Every structure is written in C-alpha cells, then in structure tokens.
C-alpha cells in the first residue's frame, strides 16, 4: 500500500477515536474533587423536627448515604421509588438534604411520594449543598465510617448505579 495514503488514514483514526470516546462521555458529569476527601461538616435543622439538629458528627462510625433532594426537583421523582425501596431494605442509613426548598413543600412532597429517609435536614439557602459541590439535584453521596466521601452519584440514582456501584461499595465499606 502506498505509504502516503497511510498518513491521512492514521489522522482519521486518531480523530475518530477521540470523537468516539467523546460521544460516550456525559459533559454534565463533572468529576467531583471531593471524592476521597472528608465530607464537609454540617449541622442543620431537621425537616420534621426543626427544634432538633442533625449533622455529619452524628453519623461518625457508620457508612451512610446523603441524598440531595427538593420538592421542586423533577428528576428527584424519577429516583424516588428506588430510594423508597432502599429505605425499606434498611441496608444503609439514608439522610436527605432538603436543598433550597420550602420546608412545608418538602414535607408535603414526602407525604405524597413516601419518605425513604431516616431523616432529612433543611439546607434552605443551599450553603451546605455548595460545600458538597452540588450543581444538579438530585445527587447522592456515599460516606464512609471515617466521614470520607467515597462516591458521588450525579443525577437520579438508577437501578444500575445502585446495584453495580452504590450497594457493593456500601457493603465493602461496612465490612472494614
């Protein structure tokens, strides 16, 4: 074969490979720099009992999930049935961060769609969400016994993500 013909072919191959990989990437999924770092500490009012607070300190020593949700968040409804099931299974404590929401609306939403959370806390102005690098609700964090973020699910939790990533990771972390 003519050697000169190989050059455009090679260039085409490289460009093709780059574009092919690019197609498979989701630009909305920005890798979080927080993975492997301690979860930002917070202490917030509980949604159902505003007189009491709850925070990262209370979860020390156990593996837990932090799910960022809001009543205005449409995609949250998508993952919600799955979370309700997860809540029933009692595999791992699930804490809800009611992000930039009206507490009354949040409570109403949980009444309507079911409350999978061990408890939810109120992040009225989204400051804690900002500390967690939240940019697209819903988001779910897996936090280990030492309080380190081990995984972040951006967007709704899917059956696939739950069974292939989140739950195996939780089980592994619970063992250690």
């Amino acid at each position, binding site marked *: 074969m003519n050697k000169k013909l190989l050059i455009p072919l090679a260039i085409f191959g490289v460009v093709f490979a780059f574009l092919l990989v690019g197609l498979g990437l989701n*630009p*909305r999924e*920005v*890798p*979080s*720099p*927080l993975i492997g770092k301690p979860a930002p500490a917070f202490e917030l009012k509980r949604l159902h009992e505003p007189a009491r607070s709850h925070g990262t300190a209370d979860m020390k020593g156990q593996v837990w999930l932090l799910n960022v949700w809001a009543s205005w968040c449409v995609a949250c409804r998508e993952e919600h049935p799955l979370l309700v099931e997860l809540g029933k299974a009692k595999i791992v404590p699930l804490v809800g961060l009611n992000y*930039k929401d009206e507490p009354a609306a949040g409570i109403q939403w949980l009444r309507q769609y079911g409350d999978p959370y061990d408890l939810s806390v109120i992040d009225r*102005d*989204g400051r804690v969400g*900002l*500390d*967690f*690098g939240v*940019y*697209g609700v819903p988001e779910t964090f897996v936090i280990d016994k030492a309080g380190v973020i081990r995984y972040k699910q951006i967007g709704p939790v899917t059956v696939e993500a739950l069974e292939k990533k989140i739950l195996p990771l939780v089980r592994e972390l619970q063992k250690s």
Partner: protein
Amino acid sequence: MRMVARPLACLLLALAAALAPLAHAADTAVPTEQDPVTQARAVRLEEQLRCLVCQNQTIAESDADLAVDLRRQVREQIAAGRTDEEIITFMTDRYGDFVLYRPPVKATTILLWGGPLLLLAIGLAMLARLIRERRRLPDAAPLSPEERARAEALLAGTPRKDKT
C-alpha cells in the same frame, strides 16, 4: 410680565422633566457591594468561573440558580476580606478545575494546551517537506525546436497552421 412668566414656567417645567430621571436614580438604594472597585473585582472573578448548570456560560453571565449562589458566595468572600486566590481555591475545592473557565496547565490538560501548537508544528513540517520535494523535482525536459516554434507562434498570436 405675564408674557415673560409663561416661557419661564415652560422652561422650568422642561428642566424639571429632564432632571426627573436623575432624581429617581438618586432615590434608589445603592447596595454596598456596588462600590466600584469591589464590584469590578467581583465581576472579574465571576468571569473566570464556569456555571456548572449552563456550562458554556460564566457565573457572571448565567441566570441559573447555581450561578446566583456562586456570585453571592464570591461577593461574601470579598466582603470577608479573602484574596482572589482564596476564592478561586474555594471554588475548585468544591467543583474541581472544571469550574475554571481557563483550565490550568497540568499533566492532564497538556493535550488541550499543547494540541494547537502540535498541529501547527505538524502543518509546518508538512509544508516544509512539500517545498523541499518541489525543489528537488527535475527541470522539465527542454523543448524540442518544433515545440519552441509552436510556442513562439502561439505567443505571437499568429494563427496556427498545423491544425489537425
């Protein structure tokens, strides 16, 4: 007297009308953050930060909720006396380098920064090779006397006789 008073009243009215917007502007409360130096600094910082919701906009341009929050964060931190560097670090700690509109030069971004230069270098190399090859081409074989005669005839504009 009345003849003079009317134009004067008109003039005063016109003047008042012209000044009205100014008076209104003075009425609006100016938030402290709009002190021009701080404002300029905030905007400069905001123009460097990407809104993660509408990814092709800076937080200065975007109206997304997140951009509003991040702008508030920038302004609060300026008010708290943080340096620009500290504010940028605050953002990258939470959102990663992606939040920077201008990606930092790192091992992982070398291709991004070096890519255009690399392509330019490849293009120049190809051009140089092409020119060298052209130079090396042997000169065209000299014209035979008949060919020369024909060419001269053509150039002179004389009609060709050897039409076949």
